[in-house]
């Protein structure tokens, strides 16, 4: 179990004023949903928290140690990242690609052992990729590639998940499967922090909500407090109607 903490963090987005600094802790078991309109800086925030983007000011701590003081391998054993955009990669099969999630655990000369292969097979099973095991990535659909990326992160066994639109390209069934998987990870003590486009998925699957406004203003708290129609209407600049299904609010744009 690990804690990721942002201290007085200001994300560096060119041409934008500093705004109020962001300080928060992602604790084990929490599921954060990050909401905001296009271009508000959700991805930049996520990459900054991952240590892949240098903040304008402030710092990010992983278990009380600033990220820049940790070696990349140490970070990679605790932080798993699912990217929204994946560049064209060199040819590789689904299996090879998923197995690469073990990289931070293997020393220079070490090869993947049977335990690593077993973890990769379990992850492929969890994301219904077993039948695609030997297919090349380039031959997969967007949703299938998304599942490969999540399976790779799963094999990495991270204590903290930073996922940028993990449900992108996924059909309804796989959206639910992936969110259930992340919920399960949180139940086992992982902290989950994910950007989501779909307000209703966030309402259903997240216990904390972070709203990112276009000017860089941030606002966060428990879902029950945060998911107010007025706040969401201001966030998206869109009128909403609220219905309740099983006591969970469902927001429908008017």
């Amino acid at each position: 179990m690990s804690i990721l903490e942002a201290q007085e963090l200001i994300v560096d987005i060119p041409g934008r004023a500093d705004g109020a600094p962001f300080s928060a802790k992602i604790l084990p078991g929490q599921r954060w949903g990050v909401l905001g309109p296009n271009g508000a800086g959700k991805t930049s925030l996520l990459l900054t928290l991952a240590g892949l983007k240098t903040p304008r000011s402030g710092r990010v701590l992983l278990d009380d140690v600033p990220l820049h003081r940790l070696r990349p391998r140490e970070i990679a054993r605790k932080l798993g990242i699912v990217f929204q955009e994946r560049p064209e990669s060199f040819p590789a099969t689904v299996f090879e690609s998923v197995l690469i999630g073990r990289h931070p655990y293997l020393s220079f000369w070490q090869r993947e052992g049977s335990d690593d292969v077993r973890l990769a097979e379990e992850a492929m099973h969890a994301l219904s990729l077993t039948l695609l095991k030997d297919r090349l990535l380039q031959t997969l659909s967007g949703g299938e590639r998304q599942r490969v990326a999540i399976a790779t992160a799963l094999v990495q066994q991270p204590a903290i998940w930073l996922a940028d639109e993990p449900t992108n390209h996924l059909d309804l069934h796989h959206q639910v499967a992936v969110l259930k998987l992340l919920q399960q990870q949180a139940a086992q003590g992982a902290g989950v922090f994910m950007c989501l486009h779909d307000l209703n998925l966030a309402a259903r699957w997240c216990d904390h909500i972070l709203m990112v406004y276009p000017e860089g203003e941030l606002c966060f708290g428990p879902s029950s407090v945060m998911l107010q129609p007025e706040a969401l209407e201001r966030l998206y600049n869109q009128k909403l109607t609220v219905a309740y299904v099983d006591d969970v609010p469902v927001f429908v744009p008017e």
Partner: protein
Amino acid sequence: MPAVRATLPLAMLALFGALAMAVSLAIGSVAISPPELWLVLTGGGSELHQELVLSLRAPRALSAFATGALLAMAGALMQVLLRNPLADPYVLGISGGAAVGALLAMLLGAGMALVSGSAFVGAMVSTVLVFGLSHGRGSWTTTRLLLTGVVIAAGWGAVITFILAMSPAERLPGMLYWLMGDLSYARSPEIAWLVLVPALLLMLPIARSLNVLARGPMQAAALGVSVRPLSWGVYGLASLLTGVAVTTAGSVGFVGLIVPHMLRLALGNDQRLILPASALAGGAFLTLADTLARSMMAPVQLPVGVITALLGVPTFLYLLYRSR
């Protein structure tokens, strides 16, 4: 990938390499039969055969093998880093830079050591130019990189023509042959082997990091790879390999393109297997190509670059056509 699956292909490629060397030693103006060759290699045989095999053919065959191995490895490395199967030291202008460096040194009448050093500097300048310019302010898009490389290769071509025009007539035939890639004057394979073997040993422990890097720089960083030092280190190494290959045999093209491509089709994409396999297969390939080049139209000796280009150009076009 389990170790067993890697051992068998490598053993077979090593055997293939040894056979290619044997063929290269046996074929020529005087054909030597396998039993006679064995005699010579174990210290016996006639004086003529001794002279032919050990003093004439062996240095050339060893140079061909090392050059092929260096070029194939340099190509394989660049392809992984750029995530593009079309990358090749020749196509990207690295060989051109090395050739300009070497020709300048030759024009000034420098010795062999200085020609080598100058070729390496040329390769490095070319690498920094290509990668620096195409990096710009954004990320390395592979299209931009390939285009930059092609344009820089064209630029080096012009510089080479200029140097040739300025050179005294008696130096021209040697320079020209060397430009096309020729092993006729390759007499000292030592430097090439001294670079090849450590480079290969150095590559093995970082090959898995290269597998990760092939998924893209962001994903690699997320999995704990120090992307920037690794990338620059490998670019530097690829330039060194190219520079040494160019000083040994001139600018032989397309070996770095054909060999890794064929191997990936047959063996998959694990760099821990592909890199040593490229070295073995590249060596064997260039050894056979050179044997063909010097025996096909004997007594006329063709530069080996002609053979590799005749095979390489269609391969490149085919890859380009398929990649869209």
